[in-house]
């Protein structure tokens, strides 16, 4: 116990990610950091702050301005035995790299019948709520979850950020790692020696008996607030792994509660919520008191910032869904 306390530090989510990379760089000489402005500047969100100074320009690489180039060369470095951690500056700028991620990174292990491993992490700050201009507030996770060969993770708090990013870096499979940018400045004590919850597992962040709310990334906090505000007992699960999904944890919860609400910022239409709803319904068909409800963005491009509060699910929209599920 004393030791645990000794290694606990209060960190923002951004600093926790930074600590995770620093530790990975220190422990494994094959780990590299790459991206636009990740070096001297330390990233536009300062997530890689100080890493170039500490580990040098060969390991923390300011790249030319080309996302396909970043992922394409990261693949090449992985083929040479390196473990690149690539930063995509904002969610909306991952698309020039989409081809390399979908047709190469995701498929290389199979193409080689297992002879090649692709320990590449693609870090993407995602989601809205920061008053940004176009392309800076998107939630493209469903594209990657639908892409076989990738693992997709989303962290929601500093402690998870710290352990999950280290797990992603250590993983021999490619991982698309989503970071809730509007929570970068959220703080909590982080135990720097704790192993963290195993990769791929969802976590029940608030136990409850009457309804299950599923969320990930920035929406976990919103859902916890909603659960707090609701008058019946609501269980909140942080999915953490979006591909694969930890359906065992989810189904066990819904089998107990009989009601389920899924919340994400991405547009509901074609979003991950549909997949989860279909699976939950298949497994818990006779147990469901109401259909699985989804709360999320509209089927529109992310709006200009003066409209984003309408687009983003908030406490009220989650409460509204709880209301609907309980009154079904």
């Amino acid at each position, binding site marked *: 116990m004393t030791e645990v306390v000794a290694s606990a530090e209060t960190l923002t989510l951004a600093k926790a990610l930074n600590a995770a990379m620093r530790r990975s760089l220190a422990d494994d000489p094959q780990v590299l950091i790459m991206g636009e402005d990740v070096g001297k*500047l330390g990233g*536009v969100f300062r997530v890689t702050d100080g890493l170039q100074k500490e580990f040098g320009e060969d390991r923390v690489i*300011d790249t030319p*301005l*080309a996302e396909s*180039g970043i992922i394409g060369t990261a693949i090449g470095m992985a083929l040479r035995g390196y473990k690149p951690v690539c930063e995509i500056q904002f969610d909306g700028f991952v698309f020039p790299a989409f081809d390399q991620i979908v047709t190469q990174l995701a498929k290389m292990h199979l193409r080689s019948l297992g002879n090649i491993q692709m320990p590449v992490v693609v870090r993407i700050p995602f989601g809205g709520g920061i*008053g940004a201009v*176009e392309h800076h507030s998107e939630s493209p996770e469903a594209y990657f979850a639908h892409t076989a060969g990738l693992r997709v993770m989303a962290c929601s708090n500093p402690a998870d950020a710290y352990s999950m990013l280290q797990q992603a870096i250590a993983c021999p499979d490619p991982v698309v790692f989503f970071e809730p940018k509007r929570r970068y400045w959220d703080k909590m004590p982080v135990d720097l020696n704790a192993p963290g919850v195993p990769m791929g597992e969802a976590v029940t962040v608030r136990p409850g008996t009457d309804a299950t709310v599923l969320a990930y990334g920035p929406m976990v906090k919103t859902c916890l607030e909603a659960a707090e505000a609701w008058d019946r007992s609501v269980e909140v699960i942080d999915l953490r792994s979006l591909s694969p999904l930890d359906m065992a944890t989810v189904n066990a919860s819904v089998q107990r509660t009989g009601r389920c609400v899924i919340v994400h910022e991405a547009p509901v239409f074609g979003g991950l919520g549909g997949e989860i709803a279909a699976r939950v319904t298949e497994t818990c068909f006779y147990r469901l008191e109401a259909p699985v409800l989804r709360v999320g963005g509209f089927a529109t491009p992310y709006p200009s910032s003066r409209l*984003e509060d309408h687009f983003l699910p908030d406490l009220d929209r989650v409460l509204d869904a709880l209301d609907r599920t309980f009154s079904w």
Partner: protein
Amino acid sequence: MTVEAHTVQDSELVQLLTPEGERLEHPDYPLSLTDQQIRDLYRDLVIVRALDLEAVALTRRGEMGLWPSLLGQEAAQVGSGRALGTSDMVFPTYREHGVAWCRDLPLINVLGLFRGVNHGGWDPKEHGFHLYTIVIGSQALHATGYAMGIQRDGHHGNGIGDATIAYFGDGATSQGDTNEAFVWASVYNAPIVFFCQNNQWAISEPLERQTKIPLYRRAQGFGFPGIRVDGNDVLACLAVTRRALDSARTGNGPTLIEAFTYRMGAHTTTDDPTRYRHSDELEAWKLKDPIARLRAYLSRSGLAKGPYFEEIDAEAKQKAKELREELLALPDPPTSALFEQIYATPHTLMTEEQAAYEAYLAGFDD
């Protein structure tokens, strides 16, 4: 490794006005302007800078989310912008406020974007000025396609047809899209000018992270001419762009112009350049200021005197004030805007989501 790209060989830089305001002649770029035209350029530069500074101030006050300042790049933008004909089409990045000014696009449109009332919203056809494009390099392809459209209209090759100009930065030259645009423009001989403002930085990354050789030479690899111009010299930018546009109009295909300049401010208002660059670089570039040199020339040649400069400064101040007032009066978009103009024709899901959300909102009124 970094030297070649960073050092300007005087021989390869087109300059018509020295930093000291001395007028030079260049055999390939003769330029004859009336006195009034030169004074008008000065007015453009001063007003554009004032409006930009006002926007920075408004952003600091919280009125906008962010502002990418053009400080230092006024001459590149005004020089090239004033070379354009009315029916030419501009494809800007997110920093071409000076070109917007030249195209008579009321700048409140641009401020509205950075305030977040919409994503642009102006009509490109009305001003021959396409929407701001934020994804680096994308617009180079749009511009090339547009130029191919001009060719198909038959408005081309006769020296009087339309031309297209695509703006982008030094960082953008690394993107696949920009290079694909070079391929297409060259192969189809499209009437387009690629105008690269090399302001030496892509956020925190210096030019050497994008290239080992001067950027204007990129064009050679694609089979069309590239030229480097002093981007702080409004006369040279005007002359070089005019010639490139003429070349496009007469069926001679694309030209790449590298306007060698400097981003005097932060990348945007949220950036802190002290983290990555030395102030002595900035100091050196201050001596090349685009406005100071034109003012020196105007004074020295007797084209303008003190009162004229004061008059322009006053006009700029007034315009900045008007812009501020417009911004402060700018209404937020109605909620319905969330669901509108996503599609040009009715869309069942849009209708459904809008109705559901309006019903949800109405629930709060009860």
